[in-house]
């Protein structure tokens, strides 16, 4: 899957799971703030990415993934 396809799929899945409009998921937006993630739903997000894209987000790397752009780069480079 190319990067655009990956991003489209990710936006759709995240918007559905976390009940936000797809329009608010823009690359420069902060993930936690945009999707109102707390420590519990952060675990769900990591699990969802692993399940849908086969990429494990390592706990040590989490602090570096702040925006959706960070997430896209992380997942795409590890597919």
């Amino acid at each position: 899957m190319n990067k655009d396809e990956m991003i489209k799929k990710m936006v759709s899945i995240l918007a559905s799971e976390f009940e936000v409009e797809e329009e608010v998921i823009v690359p420069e937006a902060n993930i936690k703030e945009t999707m109102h993630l707390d420590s519990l739903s952060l675990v769900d997000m990591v699990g969802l990415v692993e399940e849908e894209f086969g990429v494990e987000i390592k706990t040590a790397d989490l602090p570096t993934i702040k925006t959706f752009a960070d997430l896209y780069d992380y997942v795409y480079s590890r597919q």
Partner: protein
Amino acid sequence: MSTADNKEFAIEELIPQRPPIKMVETFDYRGDEGCHTSIAVAADNIFVDDGALACEGILEHIAQSAASYVGYRRKMKGEEVSLGYIGDIKQCQMSYPMPQVGERVETTMAVVSEIGNITMIKAESQVEGRQVVCCTMKLAT
């Protein structure tokens, strides 16, 4: 992992819960995979209704199984155990009847992920080989 590598701790050293809500009787550590726990249903258990353990009692047993696991890992590192709270319960199915007084609930718990202070587990509790409760659960410690 051989049993000689596992230190044996009393349940009271692993979790802060005490009677009448101490809901883990046996704890068998299975490394990174998780653990196996059990509890016999006593007539005076606070969750017993009309001779059967209510499903909330099994969920508490599962939560304390997760807390025992986290507590065991901490003790092995020489750290203190802390209070734990259930963060969420999902994908939970109940299969009646619930266990009767005198029966033993056996639970297999696997770790799904650990991020920060949140441990996510999935668990299956059985009585005489029949599943009574399964769920995923997040514990905050």
